[in-house]
């Protein structure tokens, strides 16, 4: 590790005091820490405080426990908490075993076309949740859904209802839950030392036995880590329940928080108390996850092993059929039906005479609101990507390359936003921008949304840049210092050049994240800074599904283009 700091380049020559150099570095790192801590911790503290503030908006502050009483006793709020846990648990139970199987097939076997299939999961990982949800409504709507109408001829009635608990679970599994796990687990499985498995085969183990007794246990810490990440992500769910849950009055905590905040008399105390409860539920997960991540270095050996793919034999085609089916469900069907939906006169009504039209596209593309939102989205996504890249790379650099005393703390704090559900973060930022006088002029501007994207993208961005820097090794930088380059020249000509693909990929991911972001900004967006994702939500609320679908497809195209570019730039799921 090098003692060089981002400020070290300024040290000129003999005569400059050594002490001042050390101080400059410490001051720089402390400023970074303070800013990050303020952005991440302050909103959370604010939420906790607000949960005890019971006076209605506009009245002088008064403190009490009414919010907490409501969160813990009102049946509606209690059931929202219970629903959150139920949905989370069922999602994980279904998606984890399937994801482990798929990751194993993709990484360790001779499955035909496994590289293409892996790419399909990567692309599916980038699909906007709301778009996929709308596609599945087309297929599984209890009355008009295509699958249901097709099966009605056979069964006499459609068996599926997407507006149900299982409908919500299904959409979750095929959107976030499954793909994110596959994307994270596949590289980890690939990096496992094949000798563990080979030793088992030599000792007489069959494929199945080896997979169950050797591969999965060896990978257990990674699987646990991914499970915990998945659990935390799924507790933040918002859009799916907002669209599918409302019609049958099914609330999870995030939609309940939203509901409490957008009613005529907003109940901030109850909403924030609910939010604090969820944050508390996240805490143990955070610690177990960090513990598992740390342990895992010792259990999975990564490096240059020649991994002979395992022969599936006659199972090859069965496995391929399974994966193709999953790919169609997570990628093919959502994309196809999202497109199809945009050309319908009446969303979901396939059986009316001449159901197709181009009017939706014409209407939306002519709409000034759409054009404004599209411009907002592009500005938002580009700004967020640029700012985030700058901030995230500085954080990662301080953590990896300096000996700043509190770099571990910075590491942990930069990771915390992962555990803060988007809707809570949005709420906290809302309080921050409305509550602090100096910041109030920013409300309604793009800056607010950029900051939200910056914070929510921080965990992933910092982690990826960190691992990139670690792989880079410090000797490449030191060699440049020795041959006569200053810190700044070294940073420009060596670090930035070598990190360029990683940084571009992180930029693309942040870009996509900002473009499809909903939960974080649902409470922050106003008519002036409204991006496409919120415009889409508004269209759905007005039951204009056909036009919402067009907007959904536009967001989907932006996301998929970003995913393609990131993949092309060489980010091969080094996430996590």
């Amino acid at each position, binding site marked *: 590790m*090098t*003692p*060089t700091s981002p400020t*070290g*380049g300024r*040290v*000129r*020559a*003999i*005569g*400059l*005091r*050594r*002490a001042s*150099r050390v101080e400059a570095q410490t001051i720089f790192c402390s400023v970074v820490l303070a800013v990050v801590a303020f952005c991440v911790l302050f909103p959370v503290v604010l939420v906790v405080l607000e949960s005890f503030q019971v006076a209605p908006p506009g009245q002088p502050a008064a403190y009490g426990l009414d919010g907490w009483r409501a969160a813990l006793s009102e049946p509606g709020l209690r059931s929202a908490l219970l629903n959150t846990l139920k949905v989370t648990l069922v999602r994980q139970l279904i998606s984890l075993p399937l994801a482990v199987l798929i990751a194993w097939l993709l990484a360790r076997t001779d499955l035909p076309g496994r590289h293409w299939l892996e790419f399909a999961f990567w692309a599916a990982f980038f699909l906007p949740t709301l778009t996929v949800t709308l596609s599945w409504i087309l297929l599984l709507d209890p009355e008009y859904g295509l699958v249901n109408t097709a099966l009605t001829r056979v069964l006499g009635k459609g068996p599926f209802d997407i507006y149900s608990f299982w409908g919500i679970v299904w959409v979750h599994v095929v959107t976030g839950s499954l793909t994110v796990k596959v994307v994270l687990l596949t590289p980890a499985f690939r990096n496992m030392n094949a000798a563990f498995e080979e030793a088992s085969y030599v000792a007489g183990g069959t494929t199945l036995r080896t997979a169950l007794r050797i591969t999965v246990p060896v990978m257990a810490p990674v699987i646990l880590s991914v499970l915990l990440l998945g659990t935390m992500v799924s507790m933040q769910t918002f859009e799916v329940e907002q669209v599918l849950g409302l019609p049958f009055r099914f609330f999870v905590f995030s939609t309940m928080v939203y509901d409490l905040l957008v009613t005529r008399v907003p109940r901030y105390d109850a909403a924030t108390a609910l939010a604090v409860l969820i944050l508390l539920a996240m805490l143990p997960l955070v610690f177990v996850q960090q513990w598992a991540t740390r342990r895992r270095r010792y259990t999975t050996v990564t490096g240059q092993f020649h991994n002979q793919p395992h022969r599936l034999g006659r199972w090859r085609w069965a496995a391929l059929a399974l994966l193709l089916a999953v790919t169609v469900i997570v990628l093919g069907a959502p994309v196809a039906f999202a497109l199809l939906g945009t050309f319908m006169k009446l969303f979901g009504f396939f059986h009316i005479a001449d159901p197709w039209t181009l009017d939706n596209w014409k209407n939306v593309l002519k709409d000034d609101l759409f054009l404004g939102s599209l411009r907002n989205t592009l500005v938002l996504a580009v700004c967020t990507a640029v700012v985030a890249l700058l901030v995230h790379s500085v954080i990662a650099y301080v953590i990896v390359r300096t000996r700043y005393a509190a770099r571990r703390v910075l590491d942990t704090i930069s990771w915390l936003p992962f555990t803060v559900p988007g809707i809570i973060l949005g709420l906290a930022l809302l309080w921050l921008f409305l509550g602090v006088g100096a910041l109030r002029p920013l409300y309604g501007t793009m800056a607010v949304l950029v900051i939200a994207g910056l914070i929510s993208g921080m965990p992933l961005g910092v982690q990826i840049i960190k691992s990139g820097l670690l792989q880079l*090794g410090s*000797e*490449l930088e*030191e*060699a*440049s*210092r*020795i*041959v*006569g*380059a*200053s*810190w700044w*020249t*070294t940073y420009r*000509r*060596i670090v930035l*050049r*070598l990190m360029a693909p990683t940084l571009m990929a992180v930029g693309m991911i942040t870009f996509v994240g900002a473009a499809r972001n909903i939960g974080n900004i649902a409470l922050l967006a106003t008519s002036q800074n409204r991006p496409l994702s919120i415009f889409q939500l508004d269209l759905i609320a007005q039951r204009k599904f056909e036009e919402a679908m067009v907007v959904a497809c536009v967001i989907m195209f932006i996301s998929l283009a970003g995913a393609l570019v990131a993949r092309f730039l060489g980010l091969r799921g080094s996430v996590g």
Partner: protein
Amino acid sequence: MALTVLRLDGVSKLFGALPAVDGVSLEIERGEIFTLLGPSGCGKTTTLRLVAGLEQPDAGEITLRDRIVASVPRRTFLAPHRRNLGMVFQSYAIWPHMTVFENVAYPLELRGVRRAAVRERVAAVLELVGLAGLETRAATLLSGGQMQRLALCRALVYEPDLLLLDEPFSNLDAKLREQMRVELKLLQRRLGVTVLFVTHDQIEALSLSDRVAVMNGGRVEQVGAPRDLYERPASAFVRDFLGQTVILRGVVKELASEDVAVAMEGALAGATLRGRTAPGAALSVGTAVQLAIRPEDIEVTTAGDADGNALVGTIEALLFVGDRYEARVTLGGELLILLLLSRARTWREGQRVQLALPPDLVSVWPA
């Protein structure tokens, strides 16, 4: 007159509370290959990094030619890029995003050398190590040996005051390592560049260096020419770290200036052997001592009885290693030592042999 290129004056470096380098003082003269040798964790690489400016000392002063580059009492520190040093890293640190040419040209560019001159000097230095013609090749497509040569070119092209080598051969296979060792020495003699070399491999250190500093626990144990160190180690650590040593235990029986007679103990009880006092050792009659001798200095003959300064032993196991035999020999029925036997004679396991220990080559150390 010899000119001091590098001077370390009581330099220390702490990692936490642990001293990695502990009061090291050294002087390196122009044109020599000076080696820091020691086991891993002895502080040799940290010393090199202190010289390079990649670490800051916690005590002491480092002077390069006539410039103080780091001094704790004077509170000065010169950044690495202002020290005009060359360095070859253990991993070579060849920049993967540059071609062979760009890697070597980079330091010249930083020094504002004009384009035509850059081309000329890069070509010349690549020619020197046999990489001519590979200018446009991507640096990542080179073999291990080529990468090492390239790293050397990059470090030499701007004629640094001092070339630092951090275990540069450790990533090469045995054959290539020997070849590079010879090449490096020839190159150094041709260019006359001063070299500070860090290694844990004693053969590398002994064969390549003009002078060697053996380090242990952050301190310099002994500095000297390779042959001096090998033949006259100043401490038990240096003696055991360099080469093989046969060690026998006893008690001083007679003492006459440098000559010592030692009554053997344990398996050899009853025998008396003569040797010389180790440098700096204070002995008196009755002191418990160790007799040390290099295995190759023991003259082994097929023999009857012990005669003069000699012992009798039995070959327990015989290993033919190509250029010689290695034999495990028991002395007095139990003590097992390693000996090197000539290929010129035929040996067999179970054979009784006589081991003559020339008194001049036996050193006596306090136990």
